Each structure stands twice: as structure tokens, then as C-alpha cells.
């Protein structure tokens, strides 16, 4: 009896090691993680038997750095900003990929490194989606003329009411410059070369926030902008286009997006160095960034897949959205109608200047 008990106890200790391999994917939560889970997480789970866990975070490298420094890494795949991928790779926190070896080719044979829209900013990042920071307004607020340009976002005389903007400086500086008259394609050149350009952008935002007909609310979670619009707290809000799309089409909220002056940004996947189950995680990542994987997530949210070949699948299968009636391509940030006046996000600029701009930005926020 005693022996049996002893063996039973020992075998209990070993059970965790016999469990199926798990891969932890860290993403931004809300409608976006939903789309990833349904688009490629669950299909992969069924295909391979590996459990895919979805964990939410709010950006930045702090958790990754803590894990790597302490030697206990639990995160495998992270959905990450370009500037964080660059910084993380430089600091040795992320795994470097060999693109044509690690990732599958497109169905027509194009190797992975050529099937992606543009080059990766860093060998540690593999392309995921193209998304946009645009703005939306509540359709029930204004009578007559509706906002249609980025300058309207800052125009409190024509469109009075509070606005919601991102709580960090990223993308706010760019749209302030464009609204102030700088050409969208020249924004970063002006920021880098003209002295006082940063102050000019921050002054424009300060004018918006201190205007008595205006005012700013700062959002930090992706789900906040649509919610702030619907609750009536603000009349216009910047945000991620997929979340607006989800609110508008999926939930029927009275909001409409304005694509003028959108900041087109890329989102990447990265793998944390020293993470457990690295082989299973690489296999999962290869599927998630494959042609069909990326096209799958576009079924649930209007973010453009990074692979060119995925777009062909979507186009062939229109209407692609999960409700079976909405065409996805017109809602994508990359569609021709939406890219008449857009700013292409420059992650190198932000990786280099983040700290200094952050200081000036926080000083501005603190003085409000």
C-alpha cells in the first residue's frame, strides 16, 4: 500500500512533463486576438494537436526583457510593433530567422522572402499584417458636412467636440504634421531635418487639447476608441482600423472611418529567445504566416495580410468576411481608395528617437 502511494505520488510529479506541447502567442486582445485565434490559431491547433494559448499584452518589450534577463521565458511568439522588433533584436531578446528556410513558400513557388510586401525591418521579425491608424467619427453628431480629411480632425471650429488620441506620441506626431500642411510622404524627412519640427507637431496637438471647443481623451487599449465614440464621450477618435471595422460591421455601431491621412503600419511576429518548445513554436509560426494562415485571419478583421499571395486568395473568395456578405478588400488599409493620402510608418525613426520624443510628449501631457 505504501509503495503504491509512493509510486502514485511520483507519477503525479511527472504528469506535467507528459502533457502536450503548448505554444504561447502574445497579442493585443479584443477583436484582433479573436480574428487571429479563429483565423489561424484554431485551425493550426486542430491540424497539429499542439495547444495554442492566447495571452494579451499592451505592447513594449518590458515583459520580454524581464523574462529573458531572469532566464524563465514563458512567451513563445509575440505580435510586436516594428520599432520594438528592431530594438529587441539589437538587444538579443529575439530569435533571428532565416526567412526562406523557416517559412513556407507561396503556393506558386515564390520563396517567403519575396512573397512579403516589403523587406523585414530586422531579421528577428516576420511579417503579419498591414494595419492602419486612421480616425473615425460618430455619425450621429454632425449635421450637414461630415469630417472627410485629416485636417478636419484638428478643426474644432467646424467640428466641435472632444477627440480621442493615442496616449503615446507615435502616429500623433505624423498626423499633426500632415494636418499642419506637410506632405504625407515628406513627414519623416521634415521631422529629422527641420529644427523645431517636433515642437511644431506637439504644439498643434496642444492647441487641439486646450481648445475649449475641443479637448483630448487619451486611449491606450485598442478597444477604447470605438467604445468612446459609441458612448458619446468623444466625437472623433483615432484608432486601429480593424477595431473600427469590427464595431461598424460586426456590432452595427454608428461610426464611420476617414482614411485621409492614415498612418499605414506593419505588424510583425517575433519569437522570444530562449523560449520553451521552440520547435513547436517555429512550426506554429510558419503556419500562422503562411499564405492560407494570413488569408484566414482576414476573414474576421479588416487587416491586410502581409503576403501578396494571400491577397489573391481573398480576391478569389470574395465576399470573404465571416458574415458571407461583406467584401473585405475595400476595407483593407491597402486598397486604392484608402491610400490616396497616407503616411507610411517609419519604424527606424521611432526606434531611434522614441526616448527623446517620449520625454517631450510626457511633458506636454503633464502640462495639460
Amino acid at each position, binding site marked *: 500500500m505504501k509503495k503504491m502511494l509512493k509510486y502514485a505520488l511520483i507519477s503525479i510529479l511527472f504528469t506535467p512533463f507528459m502533457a502536450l506541447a503548448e505554444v504561447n502567442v502574445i497579442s493585443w486582445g479584443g477583436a484582433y486576438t479573436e480574428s487571429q485565434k479563429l483565423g489561424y490559431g484554431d485551425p493550426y491547433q486542430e491540424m497539429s494537436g499542439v495547444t495554442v494559448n492566447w495571452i494579451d499584452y499592451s505592447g513594449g*518589450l*518590458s515583459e520580454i526583457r524581464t523574462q529573458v534577463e531572469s532566464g524563465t521565458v514563458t512567451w513563445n511568439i509575440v505580435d510586436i510593433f516594428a520599432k520594438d522588433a528592431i530594438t529587441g533584436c*539589437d538587444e538579443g531578446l529575439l530569435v533571428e530567422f532565416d526567412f526562406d528556410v523557416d517559412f513556407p513558400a507561396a503556393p506558386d513557388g515564390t520563396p517567403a522572402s519575396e512573397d512579403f510586401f516589403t523587406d523585414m525591418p530586422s531579421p528577428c521579425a516576420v511579417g503579419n499584417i498591414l494595419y492602419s491608424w486612421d480616425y473615425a467619427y460618430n455619425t450621429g453628431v454632425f449635421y450637414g458636412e461630415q469630417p472627410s480629411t485629416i485636417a478636419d480632425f484638428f478643426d474644432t471650429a467646424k467640428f466641435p467636440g472632444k477627440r480621442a488620441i493615442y496616449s503615446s506620441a507615435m502616429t500623433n506626431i505624423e498626423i499633426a504634421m500632415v494636418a499642419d500642411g506637410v506632405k504625407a510622404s515628406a513627414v519623416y524627412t521634415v521631422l529629422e531635418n527641420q529644427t523645431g519640427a517636433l515642437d511644431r507637431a506637439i504644439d498643434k496637438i496642444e492647441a487641439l487639447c486646450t481648445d475649449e471647443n475641443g479637448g*483630448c481623451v487619451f486611449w491606450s487599449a485598442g478597444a477604447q476608441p470605438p467604445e468612446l465614440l459609441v*458612448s458619446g*464621450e468623444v466625437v472623433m477618435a483615432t484608432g486601429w482600423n480593424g477595431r473600427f471595422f469590427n464595431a461598424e460591421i460586426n456590432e452595427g455601431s454608428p461610426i464611420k472611418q476617414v482614411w485621409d491621412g492614415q498612418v499605414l503600419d506593419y505588424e510583425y511576429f517575433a519569437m522570444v529567445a530562449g523560449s520553451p518548445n521552440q520547435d513547436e513554436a517555429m512550426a506554429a509560426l510558419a503556419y500562422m504566416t503562411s499564405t492560407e494562415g494570413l488569408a484566414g485571419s482576414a476573414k474576421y478583421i479588416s487587416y491586410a495580410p502581409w503576403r501578396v499571395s494571400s491577397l489573391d486568395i481573398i480576391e478569389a473568395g470574395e465576399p470573404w468576411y465571416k458574415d458571407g456578405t461583406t467584401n473585405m478588400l475595400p476595407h483593407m488599409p491597402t486598397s486604392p481608395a484608402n491610400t490616396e493620402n497616407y503616411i507610411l510608418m517609419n519604424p527606424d525613426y521611432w526606434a*531611434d528617437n522614441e*526616448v527623446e520624443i517620449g520625454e517631450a510628449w510626457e511633458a506636454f501631457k*503633464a502640462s*495639460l
Partner: protein
Amino acid sequence: MVYCIKVDKILTTDGIPLEVSLRRVERKNKIKAFLLVSPLLVFLLFTYVWPIFNLLTRSVDNRLISELLPNTYISLQDWDGQELPSEEIYEIFYHDLYEAHKKKISGKVSTRLNYSKNGFKSLVNKTRRKLKKFEDENYKDQFIAIHKKWGDLEYWRAMKTALPKFSYDKYLNAVDLEQNFEGQIVQKPEKRRIHKMLWIRTFYVALGVTLSCFFLAYPIAHLLSTLPMRYSNLLMICVLLPFWTSLLVRTSSWMILLQQQGVVNDLLVFARIVDDKSRFELMYNMTGTFVAMTQILLPFMVLPLYSVMKTISPSLMRAGSSLGGTPFVSFRKIYFPLTLPGIGAGSLLVFILAIGYYITPALVGGASGTLISNRIAYHMKETLDWAMASAMGTMLLVSVLILYWLYNKILGIDNIKLG
């Protein structure tokens, strides 16, 4: 007459003096008690005190450059900073940087140097890619050819300031001061001064919340202590119920109540107190922070007050009025001084909690309601400047300890009654 009788020292049965025997037994008991508690003490030291201490020492720990660029560290010590460094130093720096690049840790160098002077990150990154192609001579010219900033004295001076193994720069930064190259301590440029204002705002909010908690909690505690058991139990459940819900849920429900189209504003418009167009702005400013924090911290004030008030016999107030005092005089001279320990305990608790509050100001405070703890979180998460975050955390800890010491001096810790 008084007789003094001389008595020899009292001995125990085995011939040892009583005092010695007593002392030995007491010491044995103390050791036994300590051994019983020691596992817990070791556990606390290992899992609580040591990690916190470790994190706090990060605020002065500046050894990164001396570890990653060891030879540059040594050679720059002698450089006076008046002109550009010599060719020799450029060569040593090149070798150090190349070593770091090979070990894939040059990113840490660029991040750390960027904290000292913005622009280093892009500078080091651009240089890194060209390191392999360096020739064996004229390092200085090659560096400057890659980017003219390598010929800028300010950058080398900034590198020199990043060298010392231990520095209190972060503490200066946390009060909006900085040390220029000559060693003088000057104020930061005006547009970059944030921290002093945040410190003052944090203390002011914490004080205000403590006061408003006090004014709200005193009547509640009094009611709870004077009602018959049946009703006071029920009311006590009402006071304690919020603890069963998560802090985030409570803060989010305040958001629903306080927002422009929220419940409070809607009621005011319905009662014709406010015009529909000019609703009160109760959220995303100090008002929101104040209101939400007061509600969340209220039970911490109610409970100590209640426990003290419970011990005050009602006959004391009756005695006061029988001696000719008006109710207010009896209250002022009898009741209030007796509740002082409870007030002290509750205020201390609420104040310490309020100083460190982070979630509530982040959600309902907007830009003008952020406190110093939000800034600490910002440095932990966004800039990854943990030295800065730890410096500010240490300052908070030290200020709380000073306040605790002051409180002890004025009121005395032994007078705290929590239950």
C-alpha cells in the same frame, strides 16, 4: 525602627543564582520562538526583501558601459573632455564595439548611451553595420567619415558621463535636475520639467483623498458602532462588499457613472440642474481620480475608525452632558480625542495606499490626473529605463518611511488601534 536584613543572593536548587538562571531560561525561550518564526523570516527575506532590494539598487547601478566596453571605460577616464579624444581612444573604442557586436550585445550599448544623449541609438546602429570594413589605421577619420556625429564633442562628453559604475543621475532626473559636464547641477530645460509637478500633484491628491475619506468615513463608522448588532452587521457587509469585486471592475463602473453621457450627468440633465450642452466633465481629469480613489479607499478608513469607536462607552458622552457640556463640546473634548488612534491608523493606511495608486489614475485620470506612479510604470514598460523607474520608486518608499517616522514621533505607533 527599621531593620535591614542582609540576604545572600537567592540560589536555585542547583546552586546557580536566580537571576542567571532566569536569564538563561528566557534566552532559551527567545531562541525557541525565533527558530519557530525563522522559516517564515527566511522565506520573506528571500522572496520579498531581496528582490525588492535588488530592484532598488538598479537605480544607482550604472555598470553596463564598464562591462560592455571595458577598455574604452578605462581609457576615457583620463580624457579631459576639452577636445576630441585622441586617435588611440578611437581605436580602443572600435575594438570594444566590434567585440560587443560579435557577441550581439551592441544593442544594449546603443540603448544605454541613448539615455545619456538622444541620437546615440541611430549613430551606433549605423556604425555597427560598417564595423567589419574598417582598415587598420586612422580610426578617427573613419569613424567621422561614417557619421559626422563621431566628431561632435557633445557625444563624447555624453559617453564620458555614462561611464561611472555607480551614479545618482537618475535621482537628479527624478526631480528635474541634471548634471552638466562641468559637474554643476542645473535645472532641466523648461519644456522637459515634468517630475516636480507630478510629485506635488501626487502628494496633494493623496492628502486630499485622505481628508475626503476621513470626512466620509467618520459618520459611517460612528453609525456602525452605535447601531444594534443586527443592523450594524448588515451595514458592515455593505462596507466590505466592494472588496469582493476586482479593482478594475470598480474603476470601470465609475467610468460609466462619470462619463459625459453617463448616469450622473444624465440625472443632472433630467433634474434640469445642468443644460444638455454643458454637461459636467467629471472624468479624465482630477475630479475623476479623486472621486474614484475616495470610494475605493473608503473601507480602509472606516474599519480602523469603527474598531476604535466600538471601544468607546456611550456612557462617556452622557457623562459629558451631565457635567454641563453641549453635545458639540462633549464631542470635541471627549469623543474626538478618544478616536485619535483610529484616525491616525486609517489616515496612514489611506495615505500610503493613495501615494502608490496607479490603475485608477491611469483609467479615469486622463492627462491631468496622472500621478508619479504612472510615470514609474511608463519607464518600466515603454522606455525600459528601469534605473529611472527604480530611482523614483525608491524616492516614494523613502518619503513614505519619513512620513511614518514623523507620524510615530507625533502620535506614537503604539497608539495605533486596528482591531
